[in-house]
């Protein structure tokens, strides 16, 4: 069976490498993007099973990318989990309002994130 594809959007190179490797080991096919624009392009072309989106991104931030994805019928159904720094309050509401399906704080608690992903991509 083909592994489900996850798009990881993260501008920090080290964080991207680390998280994509962990997801890869957890059995997912991982593609990565470093900014909101790239993310939208990959979502349109690859139709990933799920998107993990860091909200503070260069070029186009995660909030804008999320809203654009929700406005586009080709991407509307792709689940997006927002990743935000936990120091910011009310991020959950903001993320949901921007069209994200769920929300996880950084630094990421990997087992918890994995559990969240599995609710959208049942194995």
């Amino acid at each position, binding site marked *: 069976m083909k592994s489900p594809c996850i798009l990881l959007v993260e501008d*920090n190179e080290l*964080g991207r*490498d*680390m998280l994509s490797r962990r997801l890869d080991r957890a059995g997912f096919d991982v593609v990565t993007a470093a900014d909101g624009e790239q993310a939208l392009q990959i979502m349109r072309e690859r139709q990933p099973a799920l998107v993990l989106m860091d909200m503070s991104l260069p070029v186009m931030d995660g909030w804008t990318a999320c*809203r654009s994805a929700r406005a586009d019928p080709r991407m509307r159904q792709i689940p997006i989990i927002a990743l935000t720094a936990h*120091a910011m309050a009310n*991020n959950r509401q903001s993320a949901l309002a*921007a069209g994200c399906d769920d929300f996880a704080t950084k630094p990421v608690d990997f087992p918890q994130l994995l559990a969240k992903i599995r609710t959208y991509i049942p194995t």
Partner: protein
Amino acid sequence: MEHEAQESTLPVPPGPGTDAATVYPWREALLRAIGELLDTEIPAGLPKLAHEDFTSLHRAAEDMAGMLADTAAHSRHDVRNQLSALRGYGEMLAEQLPASGAETLDAPLQRLLLATRSAEDPASLDVESGGGITIVGEPGFILAVDDRLENRELVARYLSRCGHSVVTAASGEEALVILGQADVDVVLLDLLMPGMDGHEVLQRIKEHPDWHATPVIVISGHQDMQGIIRCIEAGADDYLFKPFNPVLLQARIKAGIERKRWHDREEQYRQQLERNEQFIRATFGRYLSDEIVTDILERPEGLDLGGKLREVTILMSDIRGFTTLCEQLEPTEVVRVLNRYLGAMTDIILSYQGTIDEFIGDAILAVFGAPQHREDDADRAVQCALAMQAAHEELNRQNAQEGFPALHTGIALNTGQVIAGNIGSERRSKYGFVGHAMNVTARIEDVTRGDDVVIADATLQKLRGHYRIDDSREIRAPGMDGPLHIHRVLGDLP
């Protein structure tokens, strides 16, 4: 659409209250853990995935250390990202380790994970909200043991806000596991817990060879003075009653950390002294008896090995007819006979606290009275010479058994002033002796027959014991101003 102000991605500007330790109170604890990890060698035969993780972790740790070394050049955002990646790689490696059997890596890795988790704790990042009285002290690594979650959280939040790294344990058993993994500075211990209670944890800590110096602050629920007294008797360093005043807690933690640091420094100093002592023993032990070496080590001012005029008794010995012996035996046999002889003589000289100056072929030159003067130097020298002669019986029995000829040694003693010190060139020097008295001894040795002990009059004058003497006579030797009065010693008077 409005969302909250983003965290600043600008570097933390320099200024009051923005030095590294204030901005990142966990910095020191994390750097310690990173240093330990970087010091750990990559275990051989690590499986591919674990090896990959180790390499990434290593790089991330190095970069993290670099960022913390120059906090003004990096934003909090960058530091947090780095921290998150560091922990991620660490967790990945930890998942791979059980399958790879690399135990050496386990403890430093666990400590690094504890340090990153503690650094990522929101309470520890949020230092600006401190407020109230803060006691400034060195940040430490605190283990808080309490079975109640809310108490653990309260203490953890409070102490990390003060700059400490805090790790918590919900039971006595868990506390012991953490103590085994991390270098804890202070243990904050709740006495009343189900299962293993605080009293038992305290006892285990104080009995453990590596943990017994870790300060323990016990916390009692009610004003149970009897229980506290029991704890202090069992080795607890301090105590608090619940509910405790947070400033008092800070003060006691600070005192505990200072105590631990003091102990650590003392321990380091002790180890350094031990290394020095081993070095001195290895350097001088071949020439001086153990007792003299110990004496040198115990003198606070140390021993001055520079040139000094000293009165000593000099012992010189020679095997009679050694040249003939060399012609009769194979070279390997000569060495064998000689080594057995010199070995036995060395043991005797050292047992009489003599200092062996040198071996010249079969000749032995030893000195009594340097580097350290004793009242009975001359007596010990004479007794030593007699013991050396007495030892020939057993030596010659062994020689006869192996078909070697018997050895006969002449021993001469003289007492006088010599210069003792480290003599030689910069490249090669040793503790040695020069002076007229040395030459006089050699002249006496020239006229000494096998099996005899002959002493100069100068030595006889210094003897405090009584010995049987005969064959007293005068000799004239080249280079000597006047006649030299010498005596043969037959043994102790009964």
